[in-house]
């Protein structure tokens, strides 16, 4: 009897030790997706495409710096090139776990820096199909996560994780994420509305290694109900480039240094 028990324990032990909980997977995925490196810079091209095929372009440089562990505080600095009516605008976000971010916008035409009131959960990022939360991440603790199954997506082994918001603070009732078992990046996400119908789909369209970090360099968010989609590509991306703390200040919002914005 004792022998069987030991055997049973031996069989169970590796599973106990190595199987990740759904929450662990999401935590590690967020770290791989949004917290890689000490800092990050990318030239971002966004294409907003209507159902009829009409396109609009948003082009910006995004800089990000981590303060603390993955899931912790981050600062973002953005400089806009396009469209013309927002050219030279800069935007700064201090993101905190567990509460709404602080945001500042610089309007060059009147040389003014102003705080912006916006909720992360229900604000579109520059009119795109991405919300602020899609861009900078949602608190893992805001959802209940469960592993639904494991299957292949884009030819890679994935965990399929269902995340249901604990509060009714977002438009969707739950989200399914296909998380690559190897690099933990989200390859696909499906958002289901309150009626349980699929209405928004995220896909990672291109993944490249940048300084050893697997990075999603092309992605799309498509709204199935409106037919509108947003395609995002990183033209240049880099990690650990030594972004100074001083960048995240009113001084540099008003006079963004070329070495960081170009």
């Amino acid at each position, binding site marked *: 009897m004792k022998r069987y028990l030991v055997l049973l324990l031996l069989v169970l032990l590796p599973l106990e030790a190595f199987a990740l909980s759904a929450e662990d997977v999401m935590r590690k995925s967020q770290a791989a997706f949004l917290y890689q490196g000490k800092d990050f810079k990318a030239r971002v091209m966004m294409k907003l495409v209507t159902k009829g095929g009409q396109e609009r372009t948003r082009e910006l440089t995004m800089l990000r710096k981590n303060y603390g562990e993955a899931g912790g505080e981050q600062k973002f600095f953005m400089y806009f090139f396009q469209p013309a009516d927002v050219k030279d605008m800069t935007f700064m976000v201090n993101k905190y776990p567990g509460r709404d971010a602080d945001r500042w916008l610089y309007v060059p035409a009147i040389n003014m820096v102003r705080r912006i009131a916006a909720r992360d959960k*229900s604000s579109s990022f520059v009119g795109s199909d991405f919300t602020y939360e899609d861009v900078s991440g949602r608190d893992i603790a805001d959802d209940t996560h469960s592993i639904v199954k494991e299957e292949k997506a884009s030819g890679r082994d994935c965990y399929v994780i269902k995340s249901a918001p604990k509060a009714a603070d977002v438009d969707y009732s739950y989200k399914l994420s296909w998380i690559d078992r190897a690099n933990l990046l989200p390859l696909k996400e499906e958002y289901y509305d309150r009626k349980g119908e699929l209405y928004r789909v995220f896909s990672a369209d291109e993944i490249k290694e940048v300084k050893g970090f697997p990075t999603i360099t092309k992605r799309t968010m498509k709204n199935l109900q409106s037919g509108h989609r947003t395609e995002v590509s990183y033209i240049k991306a880099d990690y650990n480039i030594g972004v100074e703390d001083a960048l995240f200040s*009113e*001084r540099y919002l008003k006079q963004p240094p070329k070495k960081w914005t170009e």
Partner: protein
Amino acid sequence: MRPLFKLIVILQALLFFYSDVLAADVSLHGFFQGNYSSDISRKNPDGGDFKWAEERMQFKLDVSKEPFHLFLKTDAFLNHIDGKGDVELREGYADYTAKAWDVRAGRQVITWGLGDLLFINDVFPKDYEAFFSGRPMEYLKKGVDGVKFGLYPEFVSLELIAIPFFEPNHFPAAKRFWMYDPMPGITNRVEKEPTSRPENTEFALRAYRDIAGFDTSLYFYRGFYRQPSLLPDNPLMPTKLTLFYPKLSVYGISLQGRALDGVLSLETGYYDSREDGKGRDPMIPNSQARFLIGYQRQLWEDFTMGLQYYGEYMQDYSEYEKDLPAGFPKEHKLRQLATVRLAQFLIHQTLRLSFFSFYSPSDRDYMLNPEIKYNISDRIWVAVGGNIFGGGEKWSQFGQLAENDNVYMQLRYEF
């Protein structure tokens, strides 16, 4: 075209075409714009139907070669009201940037304070005619010709500004706007601006930093009121009025941070009327304490609401009452204003419906500004709106504008 502007235009062209030689980064952007505003309640005093009607081109030339940076923003316009075309240097400055300090010299726009169209510590010149005529918001601000130093030690940031050339506010032209005039019979008027002498140089200082999550600023200004006071040559039988700009100092503070699921703004300033310390001169404003409370919040997707309450509390009010000449409108001891701003973005933030209103609980007058703006493409936008004034007395800030209601259109192609 005046010689100075010829020079600017030539300089811009040279910089643009010879940037390779200078090995500098050069960019040229700008816009073409049509801007028209039509009366809807009454013709202008001079019989015209338009508050504004012009086509305009703007060129923004940016030349940078670190640590230097040069920026020129030049407008050329054709105004159909006067049938006049001209060139205007909106901004033109040079920057030098070091690690812990920088300097900007030339014509520059400076915006201080937290108010949304309410100004306490933003003591810099405004163009109210532009604002009431339905021109784009950036034309409310006028540049100053001066030098700004920025100092950035670890614990605080500082802006120090010296302005040797006085620039008054620009008020609506009497031929286009119906306005109250306390002495309409006296047409002999001369304007006397502070001359550009060392002792007339305006100084402004701002120190700012984060305190417990609140953006905190302290302000100091020593200069002049930008709204003229009237000085009659003879108090009993005046025949001539001198418009002059009394000396002013302002001491202020502002705080802005996240609170109540939104952004909370608090600002206050003491207006020290240095030529009328005791409040006994009825022609010069008494000293005032001004304060502002603002709250901004996003209520649902792409909809934000902004509320403000603002007050001006007059010092030495009893002196003011005592010395006010008969027949002159009497100001309130506490003048109050409340504003509401609502904005809803639609169609992926390409369409914006907005509404802004002033209402004065003390004067009971108001201004309403509804507007629709649509970005037709990434380069072209159009805005249509209205300015509606009324209520109060025939001399109060918005009440006197009651017959100037207008609808406006702005159409811009940007490159």
